[in-house]
């Protein structure tokens, strides 16, 4: 076996070619890490937004979009009385009637923007357990509670949505009463207000949905039974987790496009890199043949080539992960349902490591074939 220092010395033999090879590895690993981060961020925020213990009662036929649903306000009371197994902290059933509305918000100093408005009552906190008010208080009539990341969804500075600031909706001025946090959910990009205010301004006398929180995941059956027994109410019961999983499936083509794009660009970099390696090792055929002539075995030489390839890919991987952390870790991406953050977590980093190993192994094959594929006499004369 050749010493490891042989591989490291060979790397520095041609700095220009080394930079090209490392650059190719950087591009491939960076794309893999970026695509993984995007995919995990989007699926994570949609998966985290729904609880398997929450059941959404929506109008029949509106299972795909809560905003289109219409539910009688009396369902809130009927569900609390008619569904067995609802959590009731301090004796109050965890039932939340809500209005979901995509509306335009106006600002004094910034352009108007669309936001998902949610009309709620204080019962909402019994159902959506991830939500906390981090600043201020629950909104009264004429006030709104904004999500921690709502300013990014609205494309305004964070100062525009501080407690005490004003926004305009349907010609009415609302004061920001507080900030809510719900890490890993789409609710962080929403604007919440008093339910009666939203119903009045949007001229509706129905709710969008009623959300109930069950004692355990098996409690869904009782909610489903309620909707069937009260078929006069024209309701459908959905697990909240299933609802958001369905939305995640809706965005599947977008996530697939991200991977396809990353793959196409990475494939170009890989093939370019392989071509570079194949040509670079052409000058080392005689060197390899000489080493064989003095006693080093072909498997041993292959291991040395593999070491070189893995070292190059490792340098590229380190640089790629550093770039990914510097350029987009923590950045937010806006989509129709809300906002998610890109995160270079352990899984994305592991994807980078797998890419490194794959690149290193694949990158060793063309030079190995080039240098060690022919017989010794032929190689010595090349």
């Amino acid at each position, binding site marked *: 076996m050749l010493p490891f220092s042989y591989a490291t010395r060979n790397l520095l033999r041609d700095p220009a070619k080394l930079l090209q090879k490392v650059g190719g590895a950087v591009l491939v690993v960076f794309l893999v890490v970026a695509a993984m981060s995007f995919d995990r961020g989007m699926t994570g925020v949609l998966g985290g937004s729904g609880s398997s213990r929450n059941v959404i009662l929506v109008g029949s036929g509106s299972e795909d979009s809560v905003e289109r649903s219409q539910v009688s306000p009396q369902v809130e009371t009927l569900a609390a009385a008619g569904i067995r197994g609802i959590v009731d902290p301090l004796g109050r059933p965890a039932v939340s009637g809500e209005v979901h509305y995509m509306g335009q918000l106006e600002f004094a100093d910034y352009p108007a923007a669309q936001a998902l408005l949610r009309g709620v009552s204080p019962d909402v906190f019994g159902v959506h357990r991830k939500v906390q008010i981090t600043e201020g208080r629950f909104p009264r009539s004429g006030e709104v509670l904004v999500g921690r990341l709502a300013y990014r969804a609205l494309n305004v500075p964070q100062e525009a949505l501080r407690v005490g600031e004003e926004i305009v909706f349907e010609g009415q001025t609302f004061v920001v009463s507080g900030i809510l946090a719900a890490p890993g959910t789409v609710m962080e990009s929403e604007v919440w207000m008093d339910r009666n205010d939203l119903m009045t301004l949007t001229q509706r006398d129905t709710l969008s949905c009623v959300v109930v929180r069950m004692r355990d995941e098996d409690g*869904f059956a009782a909610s*489903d*039974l309620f909707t069937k027994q009260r*078929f*006069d109410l024209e309701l459908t019961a959905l697990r909240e987790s299933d609802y958001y999983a369905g939305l995640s499936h809706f965005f599947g083509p977008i996530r697939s496009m991200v991977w396809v794009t990353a793959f196409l660009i990475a494939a170009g970099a890989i093939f370019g890199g392989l071509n570079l390696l194949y040509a670079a090792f052409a000058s080392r055929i005689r060197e390899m043949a000489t080493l064989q002539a003095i006693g080093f075995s072909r498997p041993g030489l292959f291991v040395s080539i593999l070491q070189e390839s893995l070292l190059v890919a490792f340098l590229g991987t380190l640089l790629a992960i550093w770039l990914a952390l510097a350029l987009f870790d923590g950045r937010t991406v806006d989509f129709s349902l809300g906002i998610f953050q890109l995160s270079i977590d352990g899984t994305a980093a592991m994807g980078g490591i797998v890419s490194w190993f794959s690149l290193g*192994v694949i990158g060793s094959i063309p030079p190995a074939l080039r240098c060690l594929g*022919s017989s010794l006499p032929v190689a010595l004369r090349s």
Partner: protein
Amino acid sequence: MTNNQEIMKMKSVISGVSVSLLCLLSGCERSGSESYQRPPTHPGREALAAFFTADVPSETVTVGELLQDPPEGGVVTVEGKIGGTPTPFGDGYAVFFLADESLVFCNEMGDDHCPTPWDACCEDPDKASRNRILVQFSDETGEIVAGTVKGVNDLREMDRVVIRGKVLPAAGGGVVMDVMSLSRISGPPSPAL
């Protein structure tokens, strides 16, 4: 070792590494992939099977006829087909919706592309809601049997069945039938020519 032997050995090492890598990558399970899970057996399924009978009563009324003048507390024999809604079977409780034969299911219209042809989505929604009843299976204590009745004795959506049972008032209007016996007439009807 001769040169040719070394070449072959080197090529075999490269091949082995490549195959190992391919096996490693292909063995990775895609996130979210589903593997077959045997459906859980509920003690209630045996109890539900006891409601089924091979004898088909001759004198029956349709769901529509029953809804016109439901005899509350009385025992009737009604004929219909399972469906009228996207999820006619209860998820966890032994109930299902029975629709009147006059409701046209999608496959009866020649449309085989609908994933849930029993939902009668092409029908007027008001007509669909006015022509279905809820059927429930209760135990000796009067509690609805836990566990879905779907699949018991191969019972499926769009099956035509005859049910003998007690008519109960439904909150908000409509009819609920407490099953005494169930006879399965046939499976899904043939599509219209």
